[in-house]
């Protein structure tokens, strides 16, 4: 009964979407492409690593085409079996080949409806619609190809405040005209040249290059080496420089692809991020899900005074929480303003405490341990392994800068922890977002009166943690206590107790003064 009355509230065409309907056929293609993209890294690995042997499944173009045809057929079947409709104030999606799955999402569970369009959708004048729900589980729904008109209709009729404030909806549609912050092309290019994905790109290029040996005839390479009249060292340096350059260009392209047109909007209860060159991506982060905010100064970005802002959020919809780039490239001097505007809760200027000077030695030794392991391995494996000893000064320097970066502080409700792995990171966490906190010391730290602090927050499947290493033991224990839910009232209580104690001391002193017998 209730649902009937509710469905009558739907404006105008109440029956328009109530029939099950398929997506536009382009959806078959987009779903195939998405599967391919998800498999891209394993495929590349199998292709390049497996090509050493002739029987490698993916070294043969014939097998590759069979594989792609199979994916395409799967995409078409998926498209045929996928229907959606809007009925009784619910988005009803049914899909699945053998096991029919029904996903009914009532309007009141829907948090955000995003309309976006990738390059394929735009070629056909279509959009895709993404529904995010509150609460965990795989409740997120996606319709990958439909007309803008239909998408708008669903959005208007299923948005939580859809019928309550229809004016608001139209206002929201115009909203993209005014992002709070956006990324200029110059800054984007700068972000690309200093991006940290450089290392990843380098390893991919390196792998591909190593496989060239297998693909290209050995003779050619030998001839090539011979043709370099110089020593083989020059040759290797040249090759190395070439690889680094290619990796660098790749990382610039990668950054531009994913962060072009970066814009961040502010809505009453959430942040909306839009980005992407060909494929527009829209991310919604409800304020209530934010677990921590991080300012990261990468080693290439710190010298030119730039940083990246991240936000860690707890799970909603399909994603089970993760860290999201809040802004990819920002002048460090503007970070404070940015946080004050976009995540005002996290705007703090807290006095930070540093680890004591006697901790420096531990920072350097800690940094050197993995280096020592690598040096040992190189020494053992390669004839020219002793060159690896040259990395010792690098380790010492890094350890020193880790010590320099380390700091921690708290005010009434926010804890700040600054640390450096490679990039210098400043993390801000609210007390009520801390899942657990540990103060710990090992035997060496105990001897020197030092302790380390680990703060755990809910982000990603396993949770994330921030560490403040080798601080004064008392400071760390105080920070652990700070996490107690009623720390503030307790601290106040202690303060008033002290004052009362002081007062009573005074009165007794005064009494004693006027006591004639004294």
């Amino acid at each position: 009964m209730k649902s009937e009355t509710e469905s009558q509230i739907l404006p105008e065409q109440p029956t328009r979407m109530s029939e099950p309907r398929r997506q536009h056929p382009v959806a078959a293609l987009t779903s195939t492409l998405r599967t391919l993209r998800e498999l891209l890294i394993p495929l590349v690995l199998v292709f390049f690593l497996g090509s050493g042997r002739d029987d490698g499944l993916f070294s043969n173009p014939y097998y590759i085409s069979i594989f792609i045809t199979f994916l395409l057929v799967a995409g078409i079947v998926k498209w045929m079996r996928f229907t959606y409709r809007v009925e009784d104030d619910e988005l009803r999606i049914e899909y699945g080949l053998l096991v029919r799955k029904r996903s009914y999402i009532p309007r009141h569970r829907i948090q955000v409806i995003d309309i976006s369009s990738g390059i394929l959708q735009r070629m056909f004048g279509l959009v895709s619609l993404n529904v995010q729900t509150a609460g965990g589980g795989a409740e997120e729904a996606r319709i990958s190809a439909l007309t803008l008109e239909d998408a708008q209709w669903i959005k208007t009729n299923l948005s939580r405040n859809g019928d309550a404030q229809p004016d608001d909806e139209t206002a929201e549609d115009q909203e993209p005209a005014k992002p709070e912050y956006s990324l200029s092309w110059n800054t984007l290019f700068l972000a690309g040249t200093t991006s940290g994905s450089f290392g990843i790109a380098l390893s991919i290029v390196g792998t591909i290059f190593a496989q060239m040996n297998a693909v290209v005839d050995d003779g050619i390479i030998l001839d090539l080496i011979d043709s370099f009249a110089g020593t083989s060292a020059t040759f290797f340096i040249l090759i190395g420089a070439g690889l680094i350059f290619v990796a660098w260009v790749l990382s610039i392209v990668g950054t531009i692809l994913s962060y072009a047109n970066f814009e961040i909007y502010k809505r009453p209860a959430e942040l909306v991020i839009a980005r992407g060159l060909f494929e527009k991506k829209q991310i919604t982060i409800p304020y209530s899900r934010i677990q921590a905010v991080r300012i990261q100064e990468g080693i290439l970005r710190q010298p030119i005074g730039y940083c990246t802002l991240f936000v860690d959020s707890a799970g909603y919809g399909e994603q089970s929480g993760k860290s999201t780039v809040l802004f990819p490239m920002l002048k460090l001097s503007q970070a404070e303003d940015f946080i004050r505007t976009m995540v005002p809760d996290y705007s703090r200027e807290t006095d930070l405490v540093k680890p004591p000077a006697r901790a420096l030695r531990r920072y350097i030794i800690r940094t050197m341990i993995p280096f020592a392991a690598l040096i040992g391995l190189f020494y053992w494996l390669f004839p020219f392994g002793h060159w690896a000893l040259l990395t010792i000064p690098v380790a010492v320097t890094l350890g020193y800068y880790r010590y320099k970066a380390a700091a921690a502080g708290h005010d009434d409700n926010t804890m700040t922890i600054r640390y450096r792995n490679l990039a210098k990171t400043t993390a801000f966490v609210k007390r009520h977002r801390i899942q657990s906190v540990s103060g710990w010391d090992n035997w060496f730290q105990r001897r020197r009166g030092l302790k380390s602090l680990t703060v755990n927050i809910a982000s990603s499947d396993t949770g994330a943690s921030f560490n403040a290493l080798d601080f004064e033991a008392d400071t760390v224990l105080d920070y652990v206590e700070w996490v107690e839910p009623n720390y503030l009232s307790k601290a106040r209580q202690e303060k008033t107790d002290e004052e009362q104690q002081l007062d009573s001391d005074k009165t007794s002193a005064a009494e004693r003064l006027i006591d004639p017998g004294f």
Partner: protein
Amino acid sequence: MRPDPDQKIDIKAIPAWRITGGLGSLFWWFLPIVYGFFALGGVTERWPIIVLTILVVLNTILQATLIPSIRWRRWSYQIDKHEIYLQHGIFIIRRTLIPVNRIQHVDTRQGPIMRSFDLSSVTITTAATTHEIPALNDEVADEVRNRISDLARAADQDV
């Protein structure tokens, strides 16, 4: 500054850990054995066999004697209205605070060896981490579990 947590775990933890630790440490014996096969087959040097053997035997002896009593001495916990404190560790001593209103669920569990000593452990789970108070007497473990779960429910209503 807070003093150490005031509750100890059951003293029967020591004999129980001697058994579990001693048996568990036998796993590492595979190292000298596997290495021995390679070395005696002439693939690598032989002297590491002796080093590895000494190490794993020493580990087993320590696990069956000294380590359980150190571990027991270091373990303490305290359950307050708003937070739980745990403190434990042999080489690294760790004091952990879990705010009660962050606790998602709490349960007790028991392995076969622990059962023969009437011991259970209490597991506390938050959205990010899992913590264990090991080796409590069965009744104490039930009581602790119920108390934490009551506190967590009360704290939820506060918020």
